[in-house]
């Protein structure tokens, strides 16, 4: 039995290790690049046949949309300031009740087409508007911290 560097060379180990590392790395780089472009391809596909300047169609609203939709307002440009976001979230939280399951809140945001709800919810938690109540629930604190 041969040991050490000689054993590696005899088994072609250096080339196998180098080529193997290179292949797995390049494979995942290509996959990573493709998935980073995937949403652009999907958007192009979904917008096929539509003139470039025409607005995207409004998403169809469900017949069973909850009544809160009338009080919840979604502005054209969504604010990133927690205080302003809190104003937009307040009617939704009022409708859901003071303490709400985080998952339910997320679902409600999706129903009302709130953009990137996980970002907003995170900001509201950091600003103290949403406080952990345990068991996956959060409390709404109107004034924040």
């Amino acid at each position, binding site marked *: *039995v*041969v*040991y*050490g*560097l000689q*054993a*590696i060379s005899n*088994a*072609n*180990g*250096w080339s*196998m*290790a*180098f*080529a*193997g*590392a290179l*292949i*797995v*790395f390049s*494979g*995942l*780089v*290509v*996959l*990573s*690049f*493709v*998935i*980073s472009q*995937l*949403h652009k391809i*999907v958007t192009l596909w*979904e917008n096929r046949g539509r003139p470039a300047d025409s607005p995207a169609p409004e998403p169809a609203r469900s017949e069973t949309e909850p009544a809160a939709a009338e009080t919840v307002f979604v502005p054209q440009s969504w604010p990133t300031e927690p205080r302003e976001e809190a104003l937009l979230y307040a009617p939704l939280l009022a409708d859901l009740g003071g303490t709400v399951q985080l998952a339910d809140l997320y679902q409600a945001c999706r129903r009302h087409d709130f*953009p*990137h709800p*996980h*970002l907003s919810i*995170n900001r509201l938690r*950091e600003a103290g508007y949403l406080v952990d109540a345990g068991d996956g629930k959060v409390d709404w604190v109107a004034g924040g911290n």
Partner: protein
Amino acid sequence: MELLLQFLSNTGYYLADYRHVIMILIGCVFIYLAAAKQYEPLLLVPIGFGILVGNVPFFKGFGLGIYEDNSVLHYLYFGVTTGLYPSIVFLGLGAMTDFSSLLARPKLMLLGAAAQMGIFFTLLSALALGFLPREAASIAIIGGADGPTSIFLTAKLAPHLIGPIAIAAYSYMALIPVIQPPIMRLLTSREERLIRMPEPKREITKTELVIFPIVGVLLCCFLAPASIPLLGMFFFGNFMKESGVVDRLAKTASSAIIDTATILLGLTVGASTQGDVFLTGKSIGIFFLGAVAFSIATASGVIFAKIMNLFMKEKINPLLGASGVSAVPGSAREVHLMGQKEDPGNFLLMHAMACNSSGVIGSAICAGILWSFMLAGG
């Protein structure tokens, strides 16, 4: 009287030697770790109990042992030696995996690639220690920290090493909370551990989630066709989940099917560790190299994340590199816990799961590559 003596000479008490006792103690340790310490109980309970079953001494030739033709255990072991159970486990894993965090931050996939470097370093180490190339490749895959992948590749290349390699791979997966944190702490500063990962800038659409498994299976399996049995099943399971049209199948794959395969895989791998087969110098070498592989995989992920930070405006928390190994979700959980230890408001879990799922893909590709190399080398 003679009949009684003959019976007694056929009992396990009479036939037992020190190797059986050692292995039974190891089995008890596994069961203790799983039941009392909650270390990977889904794996360690079947494996630990399998070790007990496999090390009850018996009279050879009765068709009882796992290595004896026509024994029940031998038939169940067929799923291991053919690579059947690992493929089924991958089907279930795919049906359980949510790729949305990876799709939201594709660059985290590179950490899953970097953590595979432990595999190739261990390949060199095993060759240097005198293992044959096929054995070295099977040992090296422990660095992927993926039990089913290790078993799959070993079944193809070095079936006589399935027992020690599977036990080493699953042991180190269970010992993630012991192995990874010191390496992560050693390689990162407190400032680095405090880095908060920004939330993804966009929502992942349903269409992307549905297309990803198709793109993934084509890209990965065209690159390394030998990984088809693992990645083909993995992405198929994920497609069933994301397409939403075969919910019943996806649910079965992610519950009953993967559970059945895990039970049979764990039990038979445990039973394959018969003292006389398992307790050899090679097994000790495999355990040593497995620890090296796992540690280097963790370290290379962390170091690569630090290198990425040199070139990126938006810094990555280097702890995430440690979750590039494919021990799902153990390593992601460790990364998250370590991040929270430094800053309770730092939530790394979602990002760590992205690296973790990339690690699963990476280690399966590595298995395919190593298998191809060995086939090419004869």
